[in-house]
């Protein structure tokens, strides 16, 4: 019998492998975790200072996205509507509801309502709503069925890989521009064929250069 029992080598090798493997594994796990819904904060309804329900406004009342988020058609930000927009209706309806007290307070004191952001991009990313909306990318493609959400939640990871997926092959995601804000629109028969036609009509040519989003 030698100085070491048989199997010492294996234990040693195993130990070394573990030593080398754990950090690598750790990094891999962290990277996966960062890309998981937990890391990207998807599917988590975000509480808001006003109990605003998209199900009611968008779903039941059929108010179009553009009524409040008109900025999406004009510039980079879809924007949250000013309190005056809320008061346009709520000066007449539900004008004494205690739920709307923060809205009235905001309007009469001329102070903004501090909404909690749901979709946030890092500061070095410049996303522009207008170009997407005008090229036939539907609201629902990135924001999901907002008309079915009591509290809005993120449904897409908004990672660079996810963006690039569509930028490299946008055709299946395109819809006629008049259907952009339609929550329930489905391509008639063939999504690809519809997309192809839209692509041709609107000259859709998404770019994948770094400076397209990073400036």
């Amino acid at each position, binding site marked *: 019998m030698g100085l070491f029992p048989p199997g010492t080598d294996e234990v040693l090798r195993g130990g070394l492998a573990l030593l080398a493997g754990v950090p690598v594994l750790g990094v891999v796990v962290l990277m996966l975790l960062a890309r998981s819904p937990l*890391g990207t904060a998807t599917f988590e309804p975000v509480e808001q200072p006003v109990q605003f329900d998209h199900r009611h406004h968008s779903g039941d009342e059929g108010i179009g996205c553009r009524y409040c988020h008109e900025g999406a058609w004009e510039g*980079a930000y879809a*924007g949250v509507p000013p309190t*005056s927009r809320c008061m346009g209706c709520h000066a007449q309806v539900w004008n004494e509801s205690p739920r709307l007290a923060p809205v009235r307070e905001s309007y009469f004191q001329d102070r903004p309502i*501090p909404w909690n*952001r749901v979709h946030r991009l890092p500061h070095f990313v410049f996303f522009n709503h207008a170009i997407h909306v005008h090229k036939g990318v539907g609201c629902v493609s990135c924001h999901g069925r907002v008309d079915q959400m009591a509290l809005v939640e993120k449904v897409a990871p908004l990672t660079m890989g996810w963006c690039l997926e569509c930028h490299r092959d946008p055709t299946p995601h395109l819809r006629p521009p008049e259907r952009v804000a339609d929550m329930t629109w489905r391509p008639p028969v063939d999504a690809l064929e519809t997309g192809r036609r839209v692509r041709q009509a609107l000259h859709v040519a998404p770019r994948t250069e*770094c400076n397209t989003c990073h*400036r």
Partner: protein
Amino acid sequence: MPPLKERFPLPVLRSASPPAWRSLESRRRQEAPGPEEEFPPGASRPPEGLSRRALLELAAFGAAASTAGCFRQPPEKVMPYSRQPPEVTPGVPLHYATGLTLEGHVRGLVVRSHEGRPTKVEGNVAHPESLGAAGLQEQASLVGLYDPHRAKLVRHRGQPSSREALFARLLQLAARKDAGEGLRLLVDPTGSPLWAHTWGRILERFPRAKVVPFCAADTGASLEGARIAYGRPLTTLPRFDTARAVLSLDDDFLSTLPGSLRAAREFSASRALPDMSRLWVVESHLSVTGAFGDHRLRARPTRVPHVARHIGAEVGRRLKRSDLATLADGAMSTTESERRWIAAVAADLVARKDQALVVVGARQPAAVHALAHLLNDALGGHVAKVAPTLTPAPDPGALPALVEELRGGGVDTLLITAWNPVYRAPADVPLALAMGRVEDSVYCTLHEDETSIACTWSVPSTHAYEHWEDGRASDGTATILQPLIAPWLEEVVAPLEVAAAFSGALAETSYQRLRALWREHDGGGGRAWEGWLAEGVIPGTRLPEVAARVDAPAVLAAVRALPPASDSGLEVQFILDARVQDGRFGANPWLQELPDPITKLTWDNAALVSPATAARLGLARGARVRLAARDGAVEAPVLVLPGQADDTVTLPLGYGRASGGPVAEDVGFDANELRFQDAPWVLPGVSLTLLEGHHDFALTQEHWRMEERPLALQTSRETFEAHARTLLEGLQAPREHLYPPVPHPVTPPHRWGMAIDLNRCTGCSACVAACQAENSIPSVGKEQVRKGREMHWLRIDRYFLGDEDDPGVITQPVMCVHCEYAPCEYVCPVAATVHSDEGLNQMVYNRCIGTRYCSNNCPYKVRRFNYLDYTGKNPLARMLRNPDVSVRSRGVMEKCTYCVQRIEAARIRARVELREIRPGDVDTACAQTCPTRAITFGDLDARDSAVARLHGDPRHYALLNHLGTRPRTVHLLRLKNPSEALS
């Protein structure tokens, strides 16, 4: 295969221009090469005041914080408007026409505003004094608006008071019964009709009050000159685009306010082949105009008027005007070379007849201005004349008279709206002392400065972008100056409001007063008003030209009466600093850090002396000297500047502030201590003593050098015309490259490129400030500049050519040239700098890990590294930033992007409208602001593309072409138009 050295020989063309050098020191090193540091001392040291350990701790904290940020975005609030203004869409900027009053005259501007926050200033194309360009001070003006060190409190005798108390006292003072006997106003002369109206009202109510002009920059010589020549004061509006021979007598018309933007635009247009103009300059210090001139005569300041007299006599002789020719009798004696120069310029002026133009600088005595009027008239050229617009008329005698009154004790109320008169007052006018005798001296100011301390009421003033005013350009064109933002400080008061307390118009706002004043001009019941605001000019307000005849005998008598030139001893000459002017921009860190166009000095001023004088007196760069004359003295560090007249010390004004905020204070020395009321610009008989000690300048002239290769090129018009095809061949043809060809997209959407015409670049540096504003570039401070860490993406290299005493000068803007084979891209280990399909060398900040390999491998030295966090956490600094550009953190490399945010914005706009990007949709910030249009940017593939035409111009060349980098930015050879008579 032949060795690399032979395949890639260094560029030729040494013969085409004399060897260039960046500074005297580098030139002497060239002559006697020795070991030389590549980087300024201390370039690699950590910042002072922070130990290495603390730095590591901070770095570890930063790393932890950044990984935390990687995992999940921290929560954030969205604050929408409660009531959104109808014209605002968040994220879509709006543009408003307004203006800035500089030296009493308005420059029209268009200001970009993001949700009510002004973020960028551009020139107004419709305004005659801007023509779409904007200068340094305008580009940096927003820093002044968001300055955290602005005066915030109304103070009474140094103690915080309130607006209510101030106005209560003002109304008390306005209820006086002495007809204004004890009321004086000390003001900056201005062209503003509203101010003139307000002062008129005050004088109506108080007939014995006085409105006293304070003039530091314009001492009234030019108006006095016109009075001698025409019998009444007139303002001349010379046109440079039609002139073909221009003689500048100490007139830095390419950079002095006002009118320089227009003059530079017109003059650069006259420099095109084949009928190129010729510029003759007589001056004592090297100015931007002198540096651009074809022939430059260095003369001591007191000799300049006499050189003008000789030129007048010579022109008279050649024109057979006997009265003019007699000026030679009894004139100062001249040297042989001066005589040749004078003969040559006179011959050129006479040959060009009505295309000749003589201009005179504000520093020259009135007689020289009068002589220029006579010469222009004799030569037959037409120079437009208009009635002067400034109220009250500049009068250098007004301030001493006021001080006498103050000392006499007859004045109880002094209202000061002039900028910092205590600091700017001549050494022999004890204004601060005299103000002590005034019961109520009220001073409206942006910063608490020297005058705030001397007065009883210091009133924080609104910034020019925070109140309503109006003003006139020098040709009379009026502009309504609309505010861009509500005052962000609570206590601030518009200076007009303080004056209104005395004019009895306090019941109305300045907006209402402005509307009322202009109602007469606005025939349509106020409908034109909106148009004026949108356009930025009021049509039909240009002043009519005045016809006047020159009174030749009066002019000649005045010229003969000029005091004789001093022939011995040192002379001191005062100039306005190119950046801080008379000091009013001293609190602006962008302007402090901007390298002076000629000296390349930052955060300082210096006593400028010529190399010969420095050698004679044993002075070197940084030596401390004491200059004394009469009972004034000033201690200053010396900077040896080639091109300076011998035995002349030039002192830039505007520095050495004792008070006025942390940026302005303790920078440079105060030359006013040697300035006397009877000698505002030139002081002969100055003694100089060498002091102990050494001053360390923050000079950028030797930073970012490209190893003394011939880079900025110029040649004479004749040489170029003779060899147009072959001259630059070696610098134009694409060279072989070690790397495989870049895969080119089959249909590149655009091929962006730039051309910089050195024949138009005056080196004024407006582009540097514009780039800084557009790309949110921080200023780093004197200490960091000394280490070579300035962050300007765009630098202007200034080279001297040839002779040490009287060198040629060439300026060359250099920013990232966007190489097709970019050396930086090959060495980046993390692909943080990559090429786009449109030829942009993209910098991806969030990938950069800060190895700085790219910067080391960049032959053009255009990459800038954030050694520290320069961006600042001050919320006001954030107000200034362009929201379309990333904020770069510490440890990240950055560089010129060709203003990619503007390209992408134009692309989105075009694509939304289902069209192509049209020429004119995109312009970089530097190209947009350039007064001479030296920078052209655009798509090389577009039809009728101006930049493509310049890329094909025989004058174009690629910088460091032998490296095979194929830069997308090309430079165009500068042409000089020397006279045959002097060759």
